[in-house]
């Protein structure tokens, strides 16, 4: 029993994050306002993307531009797998016959999407993992363009530049999104704390020192990159089965920029940071959109103000607080207790206690 409570305490980060997220979900579900439920579902799907992104970028320190490409691969692959053949041949007349014939249940389709993305990542990533810093970022960026061009032009698979409409009902429900997002928090946290995660974080801080302590840096990056691509693809599959009509453009710069701003503002080096970054940026995003709408109604042309404000916020964070809000720290019971103690000590120092009269 004691061992169990110790374990709970040591892993308090993940329980706290799950508690906050699930309580939030219950409140939203109980409120039962369709518009808010809709925003929350999209937010939960975004959270999965952020967790997948943090897993590679946060632990390895390599800016993974290509990530959103895998989200797109997952979105298209799972949609192709789950759609009714008749519907497919109607919506996308040019599609390969082999693909038209495929039909499988939604959960299986999600997994297939993840596996395809992971395989593609596994084939491409080995040479890329040798690169970090600016060179790494540029090759990652080039890879994203390659994936995007494929998604946008391969019309026998993705319907090319035209919209890919899934039709039917939303298979991604509120609770499906919430549960997968909760699982993604658990996976991201336990990966970070695993021995692989520790080695990868070590290589992020100092590649040579990590090598000198026996870490095969490229292999660790590779593993994280492939898992990260799989998680991104699952998020993509949930996204396409929620929005129901997608194009390659849905998985490009603006989506990547959103994920990146969440991770940078929250703090990429911790799961808590990525989590709160997602919450904060989602709220700010929605607030700003309302404001933008309001201004436009007043006759001002305020289109794009949301993106501008978020971009400025991200730049300010990069300059003033590169570690993000969390600065690499995790939310934990011990941390909260420590902060309480510190505050109390500070108070006691500021206002000395009553003079001691007992002696």
């Amino acid at each position, binding site marked *: 029993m004691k061992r169990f409570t110790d374990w709970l305490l040591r892993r308090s980060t993940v329980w706290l994050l799950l508690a906050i997220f699930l309580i939030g979900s219950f409140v939203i579900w109980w409120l039962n306002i369709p518009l808010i439920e809709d925003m929350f579902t999209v937010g939960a799907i975004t959270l999965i993307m952020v967790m997948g992104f943090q897993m590679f970028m946060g632990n390895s320190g390599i800016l993974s531009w290509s990530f959103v490409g895998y989200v797109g691969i997952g979105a298209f692959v799972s949609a192709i797998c789950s759609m009714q053949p008749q519907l497919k041949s109607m919506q996308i007349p040019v599609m390969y016959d082999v693909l038209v014939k495929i039909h499988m249940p939604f959960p299986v389709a999600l997994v297939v999407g993840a596996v395809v993305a992971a395989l593609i990542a596994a084939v491409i990533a080995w040479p890329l993992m040798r690169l970090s810093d600016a060179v790494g970022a540029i090759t990652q960026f080039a890879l994203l363009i390659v994936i995007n061009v494929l998604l946008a032009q391969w019309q026998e698979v993705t319907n090319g530049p035209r919209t890919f409409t899934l039709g039917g009902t939303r298979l991604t429900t509120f609770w499906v999104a919430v549960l997968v997002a909760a699982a993604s928090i658990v996976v991201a946290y336990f990966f970070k704390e*695993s*021995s692989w995660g*520790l*080695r990868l*974080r*070590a290589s*992020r*801080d*100092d590649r*040579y*020192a*990590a*090598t*000198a*302590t*026996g*870490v*095969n*840096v490229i292999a660790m990056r590779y593993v994280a990159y492939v898992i990260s691509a799989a998680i991104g693809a699952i998020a993509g599959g949930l996204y396409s089965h929620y929005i129901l009509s997608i194009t390659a453009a849905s998985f490009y710069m603006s989506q990547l920029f959103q994920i990146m701003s969440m991770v940078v503002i929250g703090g990429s*080096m911790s799961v808590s940071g990525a989590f709160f970054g997602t919450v904060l940026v989602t709220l700010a995003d929605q607030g700003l959109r309302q404001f933008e709408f309001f201004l436009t109604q007043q006759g001002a042309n305020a289109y794009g103000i949301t993106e501008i404000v978020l971009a400025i916020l991200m730049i300010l964070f990069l300059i003033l607080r590169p570690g993000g809000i969390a600065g*690499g720290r995790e939310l934990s019971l011990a941390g909260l207790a420590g902060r309480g103690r510190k505050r109390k000590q500070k108070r006691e120092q500021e206002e000395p206690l009553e003079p001691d009269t007992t002696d």
Partner: protein
Amino acid sequence: MTHTATLELTGLGKSFAGLKAVDDVSLRLATGEILGLIGPNGSGKTTLINIMTGLLPKTTGTVVIDGTDVSRYPAYRVARAGLARTFQTIRLFKNLTCLENVEEGAVGVGVGRRQAVVRARDLLAEVGLTDSSNKLARELTFGDQRRLEIARALAAQPKFLLLDEPAAGLNEEETDALLQYLKPLPALKHIGILIVDHDMRLMMSLCDRLHVLNYGRTIAEGTPGQVQNDPQVIEAYLGSEAKAHA
């Protein structure tokens, strides 16, 4: 249990665009002893450490650890074969806690997380950093960072420990503490230590043997007493005029 392992370098060399930074260096170190590597600035000491650990590719020569030829191993496998090191410019994992830094030293060579924590706690206690366990490495003072780096290297339970200028930047008191800590270490942990440093007082009292390099070549090897009186060593350190005056 108390089998004596050896680290053997044979004919090691490294050229940078024709310049021989390390030229045909051979040395031998057994567990239980401390070998000092000295030489004037630029004599190739750090390069030698970098090529023996595989961090830099070597031009010639072989490195054998306890019978295993690691000459062609990538750096991480050399570390796993039992060669741990510290760096002249401290290289810690700045955003990890002290405990995680030392844990990584064990996890890096393949030790499980649970066992690594136990080792890390013991080592932090040993170097006197228990109170800083949960601090980030970058928050430590310079002297503490040096000790943390040694603890991290020891966490791998290596056969051989390479210390690249561990006393650089330490004051006299801290250097003495380092000496007190290192002196019994080979017998205690059954390791061999190869140490590079410019602090001659430290090197003379710490090392069993000294190996002297100049312009990448071995110019002398022997006990501190022998090396101190070697005319070639005196010349390398003080210049040929000193010899003329002597």
